């Protein structure tokens, strides 16, 4: 792979230790250069690099940092390492193998944001990875890279690793802040945005692991050089997590703009059993699905958005032709039903009813009309929720109904016949007592 930046030394033994990371050029001139630049110049550099958030929304990293107010109030940098979007596992790889890259990125990110306190919010399930991070943070403190007057500059940074306890919604930035404050992880109403009022009411910059880990590289090669990688509006490389029915599931670093076919058939070796693709999620389970006709799309933010989906967290889930779309849809809906925080009605009820209707389809109790009801429930969720978790179910479910309607209808019909046949068989069976039971 020619485009390795973040993954360049990833399999180097011991890269998670300070010594090896330093040997490979970490915490060196780039960090010194960054910390000696005026804060505004660093922000401008980030804006010019075109680096977009890698956590889901794809917002310009530099712009977000520029929203941080000046002034002497306590400001915070929070790294979003919740990584709970189904199909996503790239941050895990970075944090386990190269934790110091993240820490270096956070030192620079905090400087750009004017923050002196930083937290890494890591999902509780990643206990092994959090231990590695804890060790790396301790090493960095010992080496004077964290704490007061980093490398003899005026910049100081306190960094702590905070472990969550299992809740997808805590990846949403405002829910994450509440959770970090020791509360239930319910999203907050926006505005105010975290850059104005975030953690402990202070201005807070929140970025994904991969976004922050990229900062040293942007600075190292220069914004203009970095912006040459990838395509317009989607600069740089991206870590993608490919899973599902591919021959080689895993994390890959690609130059943005590579075609999806090259990813799935090239990097990942094609589909298990050499079957065809039925559908694929381009950016985690929250992204509207695409089909095999979309495989030649370029994998970048704008192209996927134009195709009605999104790049999201960069998690590609591939589903082969032999898998029923109804099963995939039900799995997905159940996940969002479980993870809905329950704060707003369209999401809490919508996810519940979608699951109920899909279960009805599976058990043969549904009619094709239910499909329309289900589609309309998705429409009622979209755009009507406090955070985008509701949309995150409604969009992929809606896209599956829209793109695979004939399959849903055939399934409904088949399941209905099956259940009718079972009912008749039970009626015909002699001395079957639980007739009443089977009707309720």
């Amino acid at each position, binding site marked *: *792979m020619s485009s390795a930046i973040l993954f360049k030394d990833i399999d180097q033994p011991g890269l998670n230790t300070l010594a090896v990371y330093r040997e490979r050029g970490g915490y060196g001139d780039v960090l010194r250069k960054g910390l000696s630049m005026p804060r505004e110049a660093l922000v401008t550099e980030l804006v010019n690099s075109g680096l977009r958030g890698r956590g889901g929304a794809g917002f310009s990293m530099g712009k977000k940092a520029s929203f941080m107010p000046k002034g002497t109030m306590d400001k915070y940098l929070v790294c979003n390492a919740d990584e709970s979007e189904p199909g*996503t596992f790239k941050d895990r790889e970075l944090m386990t193998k190269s934790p110091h890259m993240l820490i270096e990125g956070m030192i620079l990110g905090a400087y750009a944001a004017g923050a002196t306190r930083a937290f890494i919010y890591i999902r509780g*399930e*990643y206990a092994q990875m959090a231990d590695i991070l804890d060790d790396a943070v301790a090493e960095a403190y010992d080496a004077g890279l964290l704490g007061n007057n980093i490398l003899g500059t005026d910049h100081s940074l306190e960094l702590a690793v905070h472990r969550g306890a299992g809740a997808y919604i805590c990846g949403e930035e405002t829910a994450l802040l509440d*959770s970090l404050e020791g509360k239930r992880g319910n999203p907050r109403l926006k505005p105010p945005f975290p850059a104005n009022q975030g953690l402990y009411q202070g201005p807070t910059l929140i970025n994904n692991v991969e976004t922050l880990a990229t900062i040293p590289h942007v600075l190292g090669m220069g914004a203009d050089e970095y912006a040459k990688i990838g395509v317009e509006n989607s600069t740089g490389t991206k870590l993608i997590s490919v*899973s*599902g029915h591919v021959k080689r*599931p895993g994390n890959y670093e690609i130059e943005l703009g590579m075609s999806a076919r090259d990813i799935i058939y090239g*990097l990942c070796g094609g589909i298990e059993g050499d079957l065809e693709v039925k559908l694929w999620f381009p950016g985690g389970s929250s992204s509207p699905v695409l089909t095999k006709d979309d495989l030649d799309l370029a994998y970048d933010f704008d192209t996927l958005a134009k195709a009605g989906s999104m790049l999201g967290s960069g998690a590609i889930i591939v589903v082969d032709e032999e898998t029923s779309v109804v099963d*995939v849809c039900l799995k997905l809906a159940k996940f969002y039903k479980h993870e809905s925080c329950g704060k707003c009605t369209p999401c809490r009820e919508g996810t519940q009813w979608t699951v109920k209707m899909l279960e009805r389809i599976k058990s043969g109790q549904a009619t094709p009309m239910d499909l329309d009801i289900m589609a309309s429930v998705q429409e009622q969720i979209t755009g009507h929720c406090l955070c985008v978790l509701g949309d995150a179910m409604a969009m992929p479910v809606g896209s599956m109904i829209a793109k695979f309607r004939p399959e849903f209808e055939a399934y409904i019909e088949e399941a209905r016949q099956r259940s009718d046949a079972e009912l008749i068989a039970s009626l015909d069976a002699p001395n079957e007592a639980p007739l009443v039971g089977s009707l309720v």
Partner: protein
Amino acid sequence: MSRELEEEVGTAGLPTGDLTLGQHVGSGEVPRYRGGSRTPGWDDAVDLTKDPATIPDPSTCHVPEDLRAEIEAHMAKYPDTRSAAIPALMAAQKRHVWCTPEAIEQVACVMRLTPGYLVAVAGFYDMLETRPVGRHKVYVCTNISCSLRGADDLMDRVVEEIGDDPDFNVRSFECLGACDIAPMISVDDVYVGPVALEDVPTMVAQIRAGDEVLPEQQIIRRKSVDPNAVST
């Protein structure tokens, strides 16, 4: 609140008599009360005539020294000590196996929060157990990517192998962020995968024996970059 153990104890080896707090920690046996619980009266109905519990009084609430030290260390990491709620509950849970009323009370006492607040927090998060569970966490991921690779059968197989062993906490879990090793399982926080159906007896035996679980399949040993991956 009845502190008596169930009269008819069918299982051999269960302790009898009254229990003192924290006695089971570290020992192999887990004491059980009525309904298989580890805390007396955990499922008693709420007494509505009583006021909600207030912040426990340190002079009457005994908190083990090491637990107190751990919680205080967490509190010291944050500008606002309340932020330590989750790590503190986790620490208490590690000691008590689940968030027992005692565990909650101890955290509440050190953090100066009400038990009710902490129960509300614990109830929100999947990894904080508010009901009695076994000590070995076996989280079988059954989300999309894993289920495309056989996670549902794996879950059934794991449940079958473990049976009703009360020392296990088997759950099907949402995506654990390791779909590259699908179907995968998190065994007491150690990620293993891909787990074949044939691996299950070995895995369960290893957990029971306290050995390392499927060492060759642990994610920590996996290389990041697949040497066969070449773009066309």
